[in-house]
């Protein structure tokens, strides 16, 4: 039982990263009907920005200096996303979705190349105060960083959902996502909707990247975790925010449970099967519900 709970705790912590990333993908998808492949680069850029900021803010007592660095880093990447949307993506609006998706891939590569210059070949600490420390919760060893990740993610998700439910801009984004022409007819600026979605996705990716880098630090391969958001959004459905969150946590849990138990129950699958387990679950779900667990039926895949 303890082993199980430990696996669940780790899964929820890691799942937070996937959920935040998946939310970014879904927010952009809902506003532009494009899957943005720039998310992994935003993740890397965010973690990197936070690592420098945390260094600069060492004077502030732990963990507040780190949290401040996290907020500033997220704002910075949000501005980066905003700028990229305005200069590179906006002029392409109206072009085939495929073309825009390829451009986001180009953005991803460029941003990562620049980020790599700052990272260098070594692992760069992100400056978090937790490392791999654990605490004992009723006999279950839980990593401190996983608790922080889970709590922060739950808070962020709550803020995000209230934004979409109650705020003027959030409602406008939902309306524009449902029917762009009718949103225009209500006086909504679709440009503002696009820009906001990129800024939000950038900020979410920055937080996800920073969380991923706690414990192990930042290296040039950090972005690969960004690919784990794909099974998460496909599980949840490309156009469902709730689905992204549930998909993200599901992927985290599946990975963690498989890593814990597969050696005992199915050793013939080989070592490290947990790394691909999320993709296996994704394929199984796609067989039953091609539009994801919570997605809209008509949604096409890119």
């Amino acid at each position, binding site marked *: 039982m303890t082993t199980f709970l430990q696996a669940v705790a780790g899964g929820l912590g890691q799942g937070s990263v996937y959920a935040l990333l998946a939310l970014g993908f879904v927010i952009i998808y809902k506003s532009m009907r494009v899957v943005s492949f720039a998310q992994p680069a935003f993740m890397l850029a965010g973690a990197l920005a936070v690592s420098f900021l945390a260094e600069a803010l060492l004077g502030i007592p732990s963990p507040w200096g780190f949290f401040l660095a996290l907020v500033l880093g997220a704002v910075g990447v949000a501005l980066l996303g905003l700028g990229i949307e305005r200069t590179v993506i906006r002029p392409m609006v109206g072009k085939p979705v495929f073309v825009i998706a390829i451009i986001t891939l180009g953005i991803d590569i460029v941003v990562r190349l620049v980020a790599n210059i700052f990272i260098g070949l070594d692992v760069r600490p992100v400056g978090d105060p937790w490392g791999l420390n654990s605490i004992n919760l009723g006999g279950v060893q839980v990593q401190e960083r996983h608790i922080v990740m889970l709590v922060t993610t739950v808070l962020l998700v709550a803020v995000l959902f209230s934004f979409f439910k109650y705020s003027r801009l959030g*409602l406008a984004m*939902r309306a524009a996502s*449902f*029917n762009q022409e009718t949103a*225009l*007819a*209500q*006086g*909504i*600026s679709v440009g503002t909707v696009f820009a906001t979605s990129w800024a939000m996705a950038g900020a979410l990716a920055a937080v996800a990247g920073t969380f991923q880098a706690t414990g192990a630090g930042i290296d040039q391969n950090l972005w690969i975790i960004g690919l784990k958001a794909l099974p998460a959004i496909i599980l949840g459905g490309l156009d469902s925010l709730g689905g992204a969150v549930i998909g993200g946590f599901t992927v985290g849990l599946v990975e963690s449970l498989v890593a814990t138990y597969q050696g005992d129950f199915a050793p013939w699958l080989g070592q490290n099967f947990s790394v691909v387990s999320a993709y296996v679950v994704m394929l199984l779900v796609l067989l039953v519900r091609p539009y994801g667990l919570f997605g809209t039926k008509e949604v096409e895949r890119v």
Partner: protein
Amino acid sequence: MLAVRNLEVVYDDVILVLRGVSLEVPEGKIVALLGANGAGKTTLLRAISGLLGVHEGEVTKGSITLDDEPIHRSNAARIVARGIKQVQEGRQIFAELTVEENLRVGAHTNIKHLKENLARVYGLFPVLRDRRKRTAGYLSGGEQQMLAMGRALMSDPSYLLLDEPSLGLAPLLVQQIRDLIVQINEQGTTVLLVEQNATMALSIAEHGYVMENGKIVMDKPARELLADEDIREFYLGLGAEGAVKSFRDVKHYKRRKRWLS
């Protein structure tokens, strides 16, 4: 006054759909714009409200002015902010949002007066108040039309452009929508009413225009149009076209017939 002068609209750079349309909507009035399917009525409304771009359409000649200021180069958000609001053909409600969320989206450009406008809209359409937490997609056709109109009113526009509000509604509901348009107009909103149901539109409009093939072919006080035998006869499809030839013609004939029923 909203004035359209000599307007030409082209879709996809080649398809000329409006060929020199002129029309005036004086403040405080209800003006009817009639015409068969494909005449170009919706295109004219799109041109006024800045929605041509979505359809690869463009104003190539002429002008649209609001109180003598040109607006045909403005974007949709700007035009809504200037007080012109369109209710699109087929309601186009945000089906996934609740009724009240739809209304709040309608208030996007006028969030300051949300409370008053919400009270006004619920006063006009009490059924929307009863259903305000309901997902809009589950409303009936008539309720959806009311929601679309209420949503447009949420920014308190001075001009309301209605595209075929009676389409697909039962006669009793058409009556109700008609009375609501009169009420909205009496509260101070100018209305440009596009309809195929000519009897309904002309019964409440001051002035009427008839459009055909992208041109205004008739422009008279509503009362005179209602009495005009030529118009009735022509739009009943009993004119020069002669015998019914194909299924398509039959459909066309029926459509025209309904137009004056």
